[in-house]
Protein backbone atom coordinates (compact mmCIF):
# COMPACT_ATOMS: atom_id res chain seq x y z
CA UNK A 1 0.00 0.00 0.00
CA UNK A 2 1.09 3.56 -0.69
CA UNK A 3 1.59 5.84 2.32
CA UNK A 4 2.32 9.56 2.15
CA UNK A 5 3.77 11.61 4.96
CA UNK A 6 6.21 14.45 5.55
CA UNK A 7 9.76 13.38 6.42
CA UNK A 8 12.18 15.96 7.79
CA UNK A 9 10.11 18.68 6.20
CA UNK A 10 9.81 17.14 2.73
CA UNK A 11 6.99 15.12 1.13
CA UNK A 12 7.69 11.39 1.30
CA UNK A 13 6.03 8.39 -0.33
CA UNK A 14 6.45 4.73 0.53
CA UNK A 15 5.03 1.48 -0.83
CA UNK A 16 4.88 -0.85 2.18
CA UNK A 17 3.15 -3.89 3.59
CA UNK A 18 0.54 -3.40 6.31
CA UNK A 19 2.90 -4.13 9.18
CA UNK A 20 6.15 -2.75 7.83
CA UNK A 21 7.59 -0.71 10.67
CA UNK A 22 8.92 2.79 10.19
CA UNK A 23 12.42 1.81 11.32
CA UNK A 24 12.81 -0.74 8.52
CA UNK A 25 11.49 1.69 5.94
CA UNK A 26 13.90 4.45 6.98
CA UNK A 27 16.97 2.26 7.15
CA UNK A 28 16.00 0.53 3.90
CA UNK A 29 16.05 3.93 2.24
CA UNK A 30 19.56 4.62 3.53
CA UNK A 31 18.56 6.80 6.48
CA UNK A 32 20.65 4.87 8.98
CA UNK A 33 20.75 7.58 11.64
CA UNK A 34 17.79 5.80 13.21
CA UNK A 35 19.25 2.73 14.93
CA UNK A 36 17.78 -0.61 15.81
CA UNK A 37 18.54 -1.60 19.39
CA UNK A 38 16.14 -3.80 21.31
CA UNK A 39 13.38 -3.93 18.70
CA UNK A 40 10.67 -3.88 21.37
CA UNK A 41 10.30 -0.19 22.24
CA UNK A 42 12.47 -0.19 25.34
CA UNK A 43 15.89 1.20 24.42
CA UNK A 44 15.07 4.36 22.48
CA UNK A 45 17.75 3.96 19.80
CA UNK A 46 15.08 4.06 17.07
CA UNK A 47 13.23 7.10 18.39
CA UNK A 48 11.74 9.47 15.84
CA UNK A 49 9.21 12.29 16.15
CA UNK A 50 5.73 11.71 14.74
CA UNK A 51 3.58 14.84 14.88
CA UNK A 52 5.90 16.20 17.54
CA UNK A 53 5.75 13.16 19.82
CA UNK A 54 8.65 10.78 20.33
CA UNK A 55 7.81 7.24 19.20
CA UNK A 56 9.67 3.96 18.83
CA UNK A 57 9.94 3.50 15.08
CA UNK A 58 10.61 -0.21 15.62
CA UNK A 59 6.98 -0.66 16.70
CA UNK A 60 5.32 1.94 14.46
CA UNK A 61 3.49 0.51 11.43
CA UNK A 62 4.16 2.80 8.50
CA UNK A 63 0.46 3.04 7.53
CA UNK A 64 -0.22 4.66 10.93
CA UNK A 65 2.03 7.53 9.80
CA UNK A 66 -0.16 8.50 6.87
CA UNK A 67 -0.34 12.30 6.69
CA UNK A 68 1.95 12.69 9.70
CA UNK A 69 4.93 15.03 10.21
CA UNK A 70 7.91 12.72 10.81
CA UNK A 71 11.37 13.85 11.93
CA UNK A 72 14.46 11.66 12.29
CA UNK A 73 17.83 12.39 13.86
CA UNK A 74 19.13 13.46 10.43
CA UNK A 75 16.49 16.14 10.07
CA UNK A 76 16.68 17.23 13.69
CA UNK A 77 20.45 17.68 13.45
CA UNK A 78 19.72 20.34 10.84
CA UNK A 79 16.68 21.75 12.64
CA UNK A 80 18.21 21.91 16.13
CA UNK A 81 21.86 22.94 15.72
CA UNK A 82 22.02 24.31 19.28
CA UNK A 83 21.13 20.91 20.65
CA UNK A 84 23.82 19.20 18.62
CA UNK A 85 26.31 21.82 19.81
CA UNK A 86 25.32 21.17 23.43
CA UNK A 87 25.91 17.43 22.99
CA UNK A 88 29.33 18.15 21.48
CA UNK A 89 30.30 20.69 24.13
CA UNK A 90 29.48 18.24 26.91
CA UNK A 91 30.89 15.23 25.06
CA UNK A 92 27.48 13.66 25.62
CA UNK A 93 28.32 10.58 23.62
CA UNK A 94 30.77 7.75 23.76
CA UNK A 95 30.16 4.95 21.25
CA UNK A 96 27.37 6.98 19.64
CA UNK A 97 24.86 4.19 19.11
CA UNK A 98 22.24 5.75 21.37
CA UNK A 99 22.99 9.33 20.34
CA UNK A 100 20.41 9.74 17.56
CA UNK A 101 17.69 8.51 19.91
CA UNK A 102 18.96 10.75 22.69
CA UNK A 103 18.81 13.73 20.32
CA UNK A 104 15.25 12.87 19.30
CA UNK A 105 14.20 12.53 22.95
CA UNK A 106 15.95 15.81 23.76
CA UNK A 107 14.19 17.59 20.91
CA UNK A 108 10.85 16.20 22.11
CA UNK A 109 11.54 17.32 25.66
CA UNK A 110 12.50 20.81 24.53
CA UNK A 111 9.26 21.18 22.59
CA UNK A 112 7.10 19.71 25.38
CA UNK A 113 5.32 22.49 27.30
CA UNK A 114 4.59 20.18 30.27
CA UNK A 115 6.70 17.05 30.36
CA UNK A 116 6.20 14.41 33.04
CA UNK A 117 9.01 14.48 35.52
CA UNK A 118 12.49 15.87 35.18
CA UNK A 119 15.15 15.34 32.51
CA UNK A 120 16.30 12.05 34.01
CA UNK A 121 12.78 10.68 34.21
CA UNK A 122 12.04 11.79 30.66
CA UNK A 123 15.20 10.16 29.32
CA UNK A 124 14.82 6.96 31.38
CA UNK A 125 13.55 5.21 28.27
CA UNK A 126 16.69 6.03 26.25
CA UNK A 127 19.39 3.58 27.24
CA UNK A 128 23.09 4.38 26.98
CA UNK A 129 25.14 1.23 27.53
CA UNK A 130 28.34 3.27 27.86
CA UNK A 131 26.48 4.73 30.89
CA UNK A 132 27.25 8.23 29.75
CA UNK A 133 24.10 9.67 31.24
CA UNK A 134 25.63 12.51 33.26
CA UNK A 135 26.96 14.45 30.24
CA UNK A 136 23.72 13.84 28.34
CA UNK A 137 21.71 15.30 31.21
CA UNK A 138 24.21 18.16 31.50
CA UNK A 139 23.87 18.91 27.79
CA UNK A 140 20.12 19.06 28.14
CA UNK A 141 20.23 21.16 31.29
CA UNK A 142 22.34 23.68 29.48
CA UNK A 143 20.43 23.61 26.21
CA UNK A 144 16.90 23.55 27.55
CA UNK A 145 16.40 27.29 28.19
CA UNK A 146 18.41 28.26 25.14
CA UNK A 147 16.59 25.85 22.89
CA UNK A 148 13.20 26.66 24.35
CA UNK A 149 13.68 30.27 23.29
CA UNK A 150 13.89 29.00 19.74
CA UNK A 151 10.38 27.54 19.88
CA UNK A 152 7.91 30.32 19.05
CA UNK A 153 5.29 30.93 21.69
CA UNK A 154 6.71 28.48 24.18
CA UNK A 155 9.35 30.60 25.90
CA UNK A 156 9.96 29.30 29.39
CA UNK A 157 7.95 26.21 28.69
CA UNK A 158 10.72 23.67 29.15
CA UNK A 159 9.38 23.10 32.61
CA UNK A 160 11.61 20.19 33.50
CA UNK A 161 13.46 21.11 36.60
Amino acid at each position, binding site marked *: *MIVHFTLNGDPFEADV*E*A*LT*VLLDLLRGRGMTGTKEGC*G*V*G*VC*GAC*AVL*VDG*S*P*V*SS*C*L*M*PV*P*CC*GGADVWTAEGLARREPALVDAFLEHEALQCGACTPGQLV*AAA*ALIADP*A*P*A*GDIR*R*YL*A*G*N*LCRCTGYAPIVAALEKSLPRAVERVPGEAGGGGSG
Partner: protein
Amino acid sequence: MAEFHSPATVSQALADLGAEGAVALGGGTALMILVKSGLLEPERVVWLGRIPELRQITVRGDGALVIGAGVRLADLWRSPETVSRYAVLAEAASQVGNPRVQAVATLGGHLAHADPRQDLAPVLLVLGASLLAAGPAGTRSLPLAGFYTGFMSTALQAGEILTAVILPPPPPGCRAAYLRFTPGSASDYPTVGVAASLVVRDRQVVEAAVALGAGAAWPQLVPEAGRAMFGAPGQDAIAAAADAVAAAADPSHDQRGSAAYKRDMARLWTQRLLSRLLHGGDR
Protein backbone atom coordinates in the same frame (compact mmCIF):
# COMPACT_ATOMS: atom_id res chain seq x y z
CA MET B 1 0.31 -10.07 3.09
CA ALA B 2 -1.98 -8.59 5.69
CA GLU B 3 -4.59 -6.02 4.80
CA PHE B 4 -4.59 -2.66 6.57
CA HIS B 5 -7.90 -0.97 7.39
CA SER B 6 -8.32 2.40 9.08
CA PRO B 7 -12.05 2.85 9.66
CA ALA B 8 -13.46 6.25 10.64
CA THR B 9 -16.36 4.96 12.75
CA VAL B 10 -16.91 2.24 15.34
CA SER B 11 -19.55 0.56 13.19
CA GLN B 12 -17.14 0.39 10.25
CA ALA B 13 -14.45 -0.97 12.55
CA LEU B 14 -16.78 -3.74 13.72
CA ALA B 15 -17.58 -4.61 10.11
CA ASP B 16 -13.86 -4.69 9.27
CA LEU B 17 -13.16 -6.88 12.32
CA GLY B 18 -15.74 -9.44 11.22
CA ALA B 19 -13.27 -11.10 8.84
CA GLU B 20 -11.31 -14.20 9.80
CA GLY B 21 -7.83 -13.38 11.11
CA ALA B 22 -8.63 -9.72 11.80
CA VAL B 23 -7.08 -7.95 14.79
CA ALA B 24 -7.65 -4.49 16.24
CA LEU B 25 -4.63 -2.19 16.43
CA GLY B 26 -4.42 0.68 18.93
CA GLY B 27 -0.96 2.18 19.28
CA GLY B 28 0.97 -0.96 18.41
CA THR B 29 3.33 -1.01 21.38
CA ALA B 30 1.96 -4.39 22.48
CA LEU B 31 0.59 -5.84 19.27
CA MET B 32 3.68 -5.20 17.17
CA ILE B 33 5.84 -7.07 19.69
CA LEU B 34 3.54 -10.08 19.29
CA VAL B 35 3.75 -9.76 15.50
CA LYS B 36 7.54 -9.32 15.44
CA SER B 37 8.05 -12.31 17.71
CA GLY B 38 5.86 -14.49 15.49
CA LEU B 39 3.18 -15.05 18.14
CA LEU B 40 0.55 -13.31 16.02
CA GLU B 41 0.14 -13.42 12.24
CA PRO B 42 -2.91 -11.28 11.47
CA GLU B 43 -4.50 -11.46 8.05
CA ARG B 44 -6.11 -8.09 8.54
CA VAL B 45 -5.14 -5.20 10.78
CA VAL B 46 -7.90 -2.79 11.76
CA TRP B 47 -6.31 0.39 13.08
CA LEU B 48 -8.61 2.28 15.45
CA GLY B 49 -6.54 5.49 15.41
CA ARG B 50 -8.73 7.31 12.89
CA ILE B 51 -11.98 7.04 14.87
CA PRO B 52 -12.66 10.45 16.48
CA GLU B 53 -15.34 9.18 18.88
CA LEU B 54 -12.81 6.85 20.53
CA ARG B 55 -10.41 9.72 21.22
CA GLN B 56 -12.66 11.83 23.44
CA ILE B 57 -12.66 12.43 27.18
CA THR B 58 -16.01 13.75 28.37
CA VAL B 59 -17.81 14.37 31.64
CA ARG B 60 -21.28 12.83 31.61
CA GLY B 61 -24.35 14.55 33.07
CA ASP B 62 -24.12 12.46 36.24
CA GLY B 63 -20.50 13.51 36.76
CA ALA B 64 -18.96 10.27 35.47
CA LEU B 65 -15.80 10.56 33.40
CA VAL B 66 -16.04 8.79 30.03
CA ILE B 67 -12.64 8.08 28.51
CA GLY B 68 -12.64 6.86 24.93
CA ALA B 69 -10.77 3.58 24.51
CA GLY B 70 -8.61 5.17 21.81
CA VAL B 71 -7.34 7.95 24.09
CA ARG B 72 -3.57 7.78 24.15
CA LEU B 73 -1.90 7.65 27.54
CA ALA B 74 -0.10 10.97 26.93
CA ASP B 75 -3.46 12.60 26.22
CA LEU B 76 -5.02 10.91 29.23
CA TRP B 77 -2.54 12.29 31.75
CA ARG B 78 -2.53 15.73 30.14
CA SER B 79 -6.31 16.00 30.14
CA PRO B 80 -7.63 18.64 32.57
CA GLU B 81 -10.66 16.43 33.22
CA THR B 82 -8.45 13.54 34.32
CA VAL B 83 -6.09 15.68 36.37
CA SER B 84 -8.84 17.55 38.22
CA ARG B 85 -11.05 14.54 38.96
CA TYR B 86 -8.67 11.60 39.09
CA ALA B 87 -5.15 12.85 39.67
CA VAL B 88 -4.15 9.32 40.67
CA LEU B 89 -4.99 8.08 37.18
CA ALA B 90 -3.18 10.97 35.49
CA GLU B 91 -0.07 10.39 37.55
CA ALA B 92 -0.08 6.65 36.92
CA ALA B 93 -0.54 7.14 33.18
CA SER B 94 2.45 9.49 33.13
CA GLN B 95 4.57 6.67 34.57
CA VAL B 96 3.71 3.93 32.07
CA GLY B 97 6.76 2.79 30.11
CA ASN B 98 8.43 5.80 28.55
CA PRO B 99 7.25 8.90 26.65
CA ARG B 100 7.38 6.97 23.35
CA VAL B 101 4.96 4.38 24.68
CA GLN B 102 2.65 7.01 26.16
CA ALA B 103 2.57 8.90 22.84
CA VAL B 104 0.89 6.05 20.98
CA ALA B 105 -0.43 3.44 23.46
CA THR B 106 -4.18 3.68 24.01
CA LEU B 107 -6.13 3.11 27.21
CA GLY B 108 -8.30 0.49 25.51
CA GLY B 109 -5.30 -1.36 24.16
CA HIS B 110 -3.61 -1.17 27.55
CA LEU B 111 -6.57 -2.94 29.17
CA ALA B 112 -7.52 -5.33 26.36
CA HIS B 113 -3.94 -6.58 25.94
CA ALA B 114 -4.38 -7.81 29.53
CA ASP B 115 -0.73 -8.04 30.44
CA PRO B 116 -0.91 -8.46 34.24
CA ARG B 117 1.91 -5.94 34.72
CA GLN B 118 0.02 -3.02 33.19
CA ASP B 119 -0.13 -0.08 35.57
CA LEU B 120 -3.56 1.38 34.98
CA ALA B 121 -5.72 -1.67 35.68
CA PRO B 122 -5.18 -1.61 39.46
CA VAL B 123 -5.80 2.14 39.53
CA LEU B 124 -9.02 1.83 37.56
CA LEU B 125 -10.12 -1.13 39.70
CA VAL B 126 -9.99 0.86 42.94
CA LEU B 127 -11.80 3.74 41.24
CA GLY B 128 -14.69 1.44 40.36
CA ALA B 129 -14.29 1.63 36.58
CA SER B 130 -16.62 -0.03 34.13
CA LEU B 131 -16.08 -0.64 30.44
CA LEU B 132 -18.14 -0.24 27.31
CA ALA B 133 -17.63 -2.88 24.65
CA ALA B 134 -19.10 -2.79 21.14
CA GLY B 135 -19.55 -5.85 19.00
CA PRO B 136 -21.71 -7.48 16.37
CA ALA B 137 -24.48 -7.99 18.96
CA GLY B 138 -24.46 -4.37 20.11
CA THR B 139 -22.93 -2.41 22.95
CA ARG B 140 -22.67 -3.69 26.50
CA SER B 141 -21.31 -2.46 29.80
CA LEU B 142 -19.21 -4.61 32.10
CA PRO B 143 -17.32 -3.91 35.31
CA LEU B 144 -13.54 -3.87 35.02
CA ALA B 145 -13.52 -6.14 38.10
CA GLY B 146 -14.99 -8.92 35.95
CA PHE B 147 -13.06 -8.16 32.78
CA TYR B 148 -10.03 -10.36 33.32
CA THR B 149 -10.73 -14.06 33.00
CA GLY B 150 -7.19 -15.49 33.09
CA PHE B 151 -3.62 -14.80 32.10
CA MET B 152 -3.82 -12.29 29.23
CA SER B 153 -7.48 -13.24 28.79
CA THR B 154 -10.53 -11.00 28.93
CA ALA B 155 -14.30 -11.18 28.70
CA LEU B 156 -14.21 -9.59 25.23
CA GLN B 157 -15.96 -11.77 22.66
CA ALA B 158 -14.75 -12.34 19.12
CA GLY B 159 -15.30 -9.20 17.08
CA GLU B 160 -15.77 -6.99 20.14
CA ILE B 161 -13.70 -3.92 20.94
CA LEU B 162 -13.55 -1.68 23.98
CA THR B 163 -15.02 1.73 23.22
CA ALA B 164 -14.82 3.52 26.57
CA VAL B 165 -13.79 3.38 30.21
CA ILE B 166 -16.30 4.93 32.60
CA LEU B 167 -15.30 6.25 36.02
CA PRO B 168 -18.04 7.15 38.51
CA PRO B 169 -17.76 10.61 40.05
CA PRO B 170 -15.32 10.55 42.96
CA PRO B 171 -17.25 10.49 46.25
CA PRO B 172 -16.57 13.31 48.72
CA GLY B 173 -13.65 12.47 50.96
CA CYS B 174 -12.09 10.09 48.44
CA ARG B 175 -8.33 9.78 48.37
CA ALA B 176 -6.51 7.37 46.09
CA ALA B 177 -2.92 6.57 45.20
CA TYR B 178 -0.83 4.13 43.21
CA LEU B 179 2.72 2.99 43.86
CA ARG B 180 4.80 1.04 41.37
CA PHE B 181 8.00 -0.66 42.49
CA THR B 182 10.66 -0.72 39.76
CA PRO B 183 14.01 -1.77 41.19
CA GLY B 184 15.56 -1.57 37.72
CA SER B 185 14.78 1.21 35.25
CA ALA B 186 11.95 3.61 36.03
CA SER B 187 10.58 2.80 32.56
CA ASP B 188 10.38 -0.94 33.25
CA TYR B 189 7.25 -2.88 34.06
CA PRO B 190 6.69 -2.85 37.81
CA THR B 191 7.81 -5.77 39.96
CA VAL B 192 4.59 -5.05 41.81
CA GLY B 193 2.09 -2.21 41.59
CA VAL B 194 -0.48 -1.44 44.26
CA ALA B 195 -3.43 0.96 44.16
CA ALA B 196 -5.84 1.95 46.89
CA SER B 197 -8.72 4.33 47.40
CA LEU B 198 -10.23 5.31 50.72
CA VAL B 199 -13.34 7.37 51.39
CA VAL B 200 -12.89 9.15 54.70
CA ARG B 201 -15.76 10.91 56.45
CA ASP B 202 -15.65 12.23 60.03
CA ARG B 203 -12.27 10.53 60.45
CA GLN B 204 -13.83 7.19 59.58
CA VAL B 205 -12.98 5.11 56.53
CA VAL B 206 -16.38 4.29 55.07
CA GLU B 207 -15.23 2.83 51.76
CA ALA B 208 -11.94 1.17 50.86
CA ALA B 209 -10.53 -0.67 47.88
CA VAL B 210 -7.08 -2.14 47.33
CA ALA B 211 -5.83 -3.69 44.07
CA LEU B 212 -2.67 -5.48 43.06
CA GLY B 213 -0.95 -5.37 39.68
CA ALA B 214 1.94 -7.52 38.45
CA GLY B 215 1.53 -9.83 41.43
CA ALA B 216 -0.74 -12.46 39.90
CA ALA B 217 -1.94 -13.75 36.53
CA TRP B 218 -4.19 -10.72 36.18
CA PRO B 219 -4.73 -7.41 38.02
CA GLN B 220 -7.24 -7.82 40.80
CA LEU B 221 -9.01 -6.22 43.71
CA VAL B 222 -8.20 -7.67 47.13
CA PRO B 223 -11.53 -7.33 48.99
CA GLU B 224 -10.11 -8.51 52.33
CA ALA B 225 -7.52 -5.74 52.22
CA GLY B 226 -10.25 -3.19 51.65
CA ARG B 227 -12.35 -4.56 54.51
CA ALA B 228 -9.39 -4.35 56.89
CA MET B 229 -9.26 -0.60 56.37
CA PHE B 230 -12.81 0.27 57.44
CA GLY B 231 -13.41 2.39 60.53
CA ALA B 232 -10.40 4.05 62.14
CA PRO B 233 -7.52 1.95 60.84
CA GLY B 234 -4.23 1.94 62.73
CA GLN B 235 -0.95 0.14 62.13
CA ASP B 236 -2.61 -3.23 62.84
CA ALA B 237 -5.22 -2.64 60.15
CA ILE B 238 -2.58 -1.58 57.65
CA ALA B 239 -0.56 -4.71 58.46
CA ALA B 240 -3.65 -6.88 58.04
CA ALA B 241 -4.45 -5.27 54.68
CA ALA B 242 -0.86 -5.75 53.53
CA ASP B 243 -0.95 -9.39 54.63
CA ALA B 244 -4.17 -9.86 52.66
CA VAL B 245 -2.53 -8.47 49.52
CA ALA B 246 0.50 -10.73 50.02
CA ALA B 247 -1.84 -13.71 50.47
CA ALA B 248 -3.73 -12.81 47.28
CA ALA B 249 -0.51 -12.51 45.31
CA ASP B 250 0.41 -15.43 43.07
CA PRO B 251 3.49 -14.03 41.37
CA SER B 252 5.66 -15.66 38.77
CA HIS B 253 9.42 -15.93 39.11
CA ASP B 254 11.17 -13.84 36.46
CA GLN B 255 13.95 -11.28 36.01
CA ARG B 256 11.99 -8.79 38.11
CA GLY B 257 12.18 -11.02 41.16
CA SER B 258 11.42 -14.42 42.65
CA ALA B 259 7.86 -15.25 43.60
CA ALA B 260 8.71 -14.95 47.32
CA TYR B 261 10.39 -11.58 46.79
CA LYS B 262 7.44 -10.21 44.83
CA ARG B 263 5.04 -11.38 47.54
CA ASP B 264 7.16 -9.60 50.16
CA MET B 265 7.27 -6.50 48.01
CA ALA B 266 3.49 -6.60 47.54
CA ARG B 267 3.14 -6.57 51.34
CA LEU B 268 5.72 -3.80 51.84
CA TRP B 269 4.43 -1.49 49.12
CA THR B 270 0.85 -1.96 50.28
CA GLN B 271 1.95 -0.87 53.77
CA ARG B 272 3.68 2.18 52.35
CA LEU B 273 0.73 3.04 50.14
CA LEU B 274 -1.87 2.81 52.90
CA SER B 275 0.30 4.68 55.41
CA ARG B 276 0.77 7.44 52.90
CA LEU B 277 -2.94 7.58 52.14
CA LEU B 278 -3.88 7.81 55.82
CA HIS B 279 -1.12 10.09 57.04
CA GLY B 280 0.42 11.73 53.98
CA GLY B 281 -0.77 14.21 51.44
CA ASP B 282 -1.56 11.93 48.54
CA ARG B 283 -4.76 12.27 46.61
